[in-house]
């Protein structure tokens, strides 16, 4: 019991440290395209919550399979899904002029 409490408390502490870390990273002069690296501490926090609070290591083996599958498929969605915009030739047709356009009111039914 006390072991578990210690484990949980240390984890909370570590989570708060990681939170402080990503908070600090936000104020670093990172290039716009590198700013998503701020998600790295967040990813570590997710792993900690899963490993310690949710006890993924102690559950039946199948739950680790489910968690990995979820993350793997998320990677497919985000990775393969980003492939198109990252490699598209963007023929941007005047974002300034169109930004203030209001939506056409051709909608009658819901």
């Amino acid at each position: 019991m006390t072991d578990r409490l210690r484990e949980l408390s240390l984890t909370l502490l570590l989570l708060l440290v990681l939170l402080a870390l990503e908070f600090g990273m936000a104020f670093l002069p990172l290039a716009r395209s590198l700013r998503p690296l701020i998600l790295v501490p967040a990813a570590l926090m997710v792993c900690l919550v899963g490993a310690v609070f949710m006890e993924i290591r102690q559950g039946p083996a199948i739950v680790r399979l489910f968690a990995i599958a979820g993350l793997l498929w998320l990677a497919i969605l985000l990775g393969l899904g980003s492939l198109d915009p990252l490699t598209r030739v963007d023929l941007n047709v005047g974002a300034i002029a169109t930004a203030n356009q209001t939506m056409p009111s051709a909608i009658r039914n819901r």
Partner: protein
Amino acid sequence: MSTMAVDIPREQPPSYLTDGVTLRSWLLTTDHKRIALLYLGSVTIFFFVGGTAAALIRYNLIVPEGMIASADTYNRLFTMHGIVMVWFFLVPVVPVTLGNFVIPLMIGARDLAFPKLNLLSWYLFIAAGIVLIYALFAGGLDTGWTFYTPFSTNFSNGHLIAAVTAVFISGFSSIATGLNFIVTIHRLRAPGMTWYRMPVFLWSLYATSVLYVLATPVLAMTLLLLGFERIFGLGVFDPALGGDPLLFQHLFWFYSHPAVYIMILPGMGVISEIIPTFSNKPIFGYKFIVWCSIAIAVISFLVWGHHMFVAGTSLYSALVFSILSYMVAVPSAIKVFNWIGTMHKGYIRFDAPMLYALGFIGLFTIGGLTGLFVAALAADVHLSQTYFVVAHFHYVMVGGMVSAFFAGIHYWWPKITGRLYPEMWGRAGALTIFIGFNLTFFPQFIVGYLGMPRRYHSYPPDFQVLNVLSTAGATILAVGYLLPLAYLTWSLLYGKRAPDNPWGATGLEWTTASPPITENFVTTPEVTEPPYNYAQPEAARSG
């Protein structure tokens, strides 16, 4: 090995059909077998709703200028046909009817892992159906079942919100079913039933369930974004506001491509049960065929961009998706060889389920091969948005999947109802469907190749002959679908009573009564043999 009629001794415990006769005992049941029947009734109704829309579409296309005066009405017809047939028939059908009924019997369990969740999934399906019927009667919508933006969000004059709400709710029904099946297959197998002793049908439903749980949530979010964009003009999909209409297509097809494998994998599973039974041989290449089901499920998530080749995605990403699309065809092709290998040197019987299964193999192969045509970038530029694509997917979906569903219904009908259907009518129905189907859809490959676009209510006069042939075929196909409705219903009252194992098949479901008792098995079965153990057919046949 002909079918036998046997008198059921009166002292047996009641079957699941007679165990409780009130409406309440049906509507509040948690028995997977009763839930399967509740679903069967529901999907049949939706099949005929979608089929009516199809009949009207084919009716319209008899003359080049369109029999139905308004293009708008035509647009609403094909939209409704698509939505109903995709989400309210093909996506659920085999898992919720045959899967729900057969899985616990096949793995030797008393029920699914979460029986109440199963009942909830049916109620979600019905709720979704009610919203959809409302959308239909309120006038439908004209966007096509694909709801592409910005037309659907900014310009369409129709009941988008009602339609996507219906689909959204149905998605939760799917997720619940898939979750239930996966956990059941992992956790409730009978003693001795290792993974490699499971019939292929279970592997196929497992693969389908993976698709249900991983793809459907993406659809749910996509429809939420779509609905809110429509109502509030969010801008996520609107280029005028900085959004990207292709984001909608990526999100939509991330679900909808795996969805087509949700539709076909259970059908392949059914065929994998029927071919060994009616060839009296073990399935050829068991490990190949089960791992191909898993491979199809995994690779199906990597190919969605092939629906967007001409939409404006980057050429690089189109290339990647094209290559992956070729890869996904390989496991399907391997399965076809497995089925043929199973039949080779087998003792083949041409009962109705087998006729449907044979039809499936041929029609699915044609449909699958034509998919490769459209997976090629250069060819797709010409074929995209023509009837070639329409014919391709109807070959796999209708020629393949609906045939497989009918095959499964006829195969397990004795187990589900305790009655035998009239065999000659069964064979007549199978042949009628096969002929009607080909006459309907083969001409569509030709007109598509010649350039006739899909989703148009009129067409150039040059295409009329082929369109008339197609409509004639559709009439025959309609007869073919009505026949089973008639004789299967007839068999419920007047059919001969079925023995436990009318086909002499292996599999735990055939060791229990037809129809089974509520708890499925009197004692928990123990499995000691590999599946499809046709070397000792006497052990599998009922006394």
